[in-house]
């Protein structure tokens, strides 16, 4: 008995080390890509920061769609709530400390997550998708009408964030914003890795696969999903706040159906149900879009569309999902 206990503890310790190693590798890869981007495109840091902000939105979408199986085309509402939250705090209430603005964005996103979760989770399947579309249109229209607060279609201007910790002002080249964004992305990645692996994350995966089974275990499906929606909102809100901080304007496009749909496309492109899939999907979509639109301003949308069809047909699990499945098969035949 003592022996089995010992081997059990040993394997637990080995598991933990393996997990920490994998997380450390993930963080190092993000860091390496970020440094590479900084060195290769020093004049295009604004684009890289935008990719970072959108990556937070796609990670957030992955939490509810990839891990919980909720279909939504309205997820930009959470991103926009964070962006407008941080922007309005700065422009109207004089909260110009970047960390405080970020905190406001996170809270606004989480609240928007709670509200839209409460609505979207009333239905399943196609009706759920329709509800999510309704939400993003309502949010968009509300921001458009409340122009006293949001600047309406002109966008919310006059956002002047202070220097980060009073030391690093947001500069014209966007260096501070970029570093701020990468640190934020890594923090979110580390926290989300914990959450998706936790008992709570396991319960969410269970709900995605068979909610009836989860109920038969005595767990509350709705309560769990609402909590995940709030977490997802906080992450998307952080992305929105980052966007407000770096561009110093907030436009209606941050609350748009287009952004919601594009986020879903990026997630499917990278692979749902994996944080790496969300990151790879965002990076490849936005990078490809940038390259192709510069190379061929007339037909770039057609080319992006063709790429998507190719991925969905030939790599239905997405870029990362298909690669992971391939490696797993290889590993098995080698064994």
């Amino acid at each position, binding site marked *: 008995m003592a022996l089995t206990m010992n081997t059990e*503890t040993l394997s637990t310790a080995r598991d933990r080390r393996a997990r920490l190693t994998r997380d450390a590798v993930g963080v190092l890869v993000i860091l390496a890509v970020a440094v590479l981007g900084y060195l290769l495109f020093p004049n295009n840091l604004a684009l890289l920061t935008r990719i970072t902000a959108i990556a937070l939105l796609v990670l957030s979408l992955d939490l509810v769609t990839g891990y919980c199986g909720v279909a939504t085309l309205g997820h930009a509402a959470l991103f926009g709530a964070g962006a407008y939250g941080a922007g309005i705090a700065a422009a109207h209430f004089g909260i110009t400390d970047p960390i405080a603005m970020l905190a406001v964005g996170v809270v606004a996103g989480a609240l928007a997550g709670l509200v839209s979760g409460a609505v979207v989770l009333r239905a399943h399947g196609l009706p759920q998708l329709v509800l999510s579309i309704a939400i993003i249109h309502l949010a968009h229209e509300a921001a458009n009408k409340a122009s006293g607060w949001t600047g309406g279609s002109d966008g919310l201007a006059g956002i002047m964030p202070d220097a980060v910790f009073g030391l690093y002002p947001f500069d014209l080249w966007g260096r501070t914003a970029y570093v701020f964004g990468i640190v934020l992305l890594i923090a979110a990645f580390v926290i989300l890795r914990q959450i998706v692996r936790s008992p709570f994350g396991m*319960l969410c995966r269970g709900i995605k696969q068979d909610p009836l089974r989860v109920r038969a*275990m005595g767990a509350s499906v709705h309560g769990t999903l609402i909590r995940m929606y709030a977490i997802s909102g906080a992450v998307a809100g952080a992305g929105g706040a980052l966007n407000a901080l770096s561009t110093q304007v907030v436009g209606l496009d941050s609350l748009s159906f287009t952004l919601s749909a594009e986020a879903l496309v990026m997630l499917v492109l990278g692979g749902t149900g994996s944080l790496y899939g969300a990151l790879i999907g965002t990076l490849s979509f936005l990078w490809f879009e940038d390259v192709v639109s510069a190379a061929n301003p007339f037909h770039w949308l057609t080319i992006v569309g063709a790429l998507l069809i190719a991925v969905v047909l030939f790599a239905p699990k997405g870029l990362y999902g298909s690669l992971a499945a391939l490696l797993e098969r290889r590993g098995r035949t080698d064994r």
Partner: protein
Amino acid sequence: MNAIFDVRNLKRTFGGLAVTNDVSLSMAPGDRVALIGPNGAGKTTFVNLVTGNLLPNSGSVALGGEDVTRLGPTERVRRGLVRSFQVTRLFSEMTPEEHVALAILQREGRTGRMFASHRAMPDVMDEVHALLARLGIAHLARHRVSEIAYGQQRLLELALALALKPRVLLLDEPAAGVPQSDTARIEQAIADLPADLAVLMIEHDMDLVFRFARRVVVLAAGEIIFDGSPDAVTKDARVRQAYLGSYAYARSVA
């Protein structure tokens, strides 16, 4: 009798048709009861009424003396009424280890935890492995469920139910669809269920019923037409007419 599970005068109609009509059934801890009945007798409706997936028109369901008639399915599970499914319902992308860990954590109210992994909880992992070993599937702990054989999935289904530490266990055709070679293993697992657990098995396979049950309840057209010992059930004229008559071997018993 000190009943752990007490169904009184349960009635449910669908468009004027009484699918469950005045059904009463009581069980004490340690009972081994088989519920049988021909197709369309109302067994599934009865299970749904008992588990809280359907509300009755009248009657009551009590667990350990507490009236749970108006409580939903999850509340009943938390009070110790656990069911297994006739067709296996498992998370195909997850491993047996994760399944059982999730059930244990849920039982202990720890599924809300976000910054811990079940693998770093020695108490949970010990229980997971003990339970999987008891059912003879410990060697599959880290395989994906979609990769393991159906008979072993049925055993995992039992492990899940046991991990919730039920007081009353409803087994809905636990050996359905399992190849002959694996049924012995499942029967053994059922024979080894905790002695103080009240078990109600819904089953078609009469051999299994007679080996398992110390009491047989026969449901026909929504009503209980027999409640007694396995020996007496084959001799009961109403039962034979309603049900056993269709089984060739019942004639040889008579």
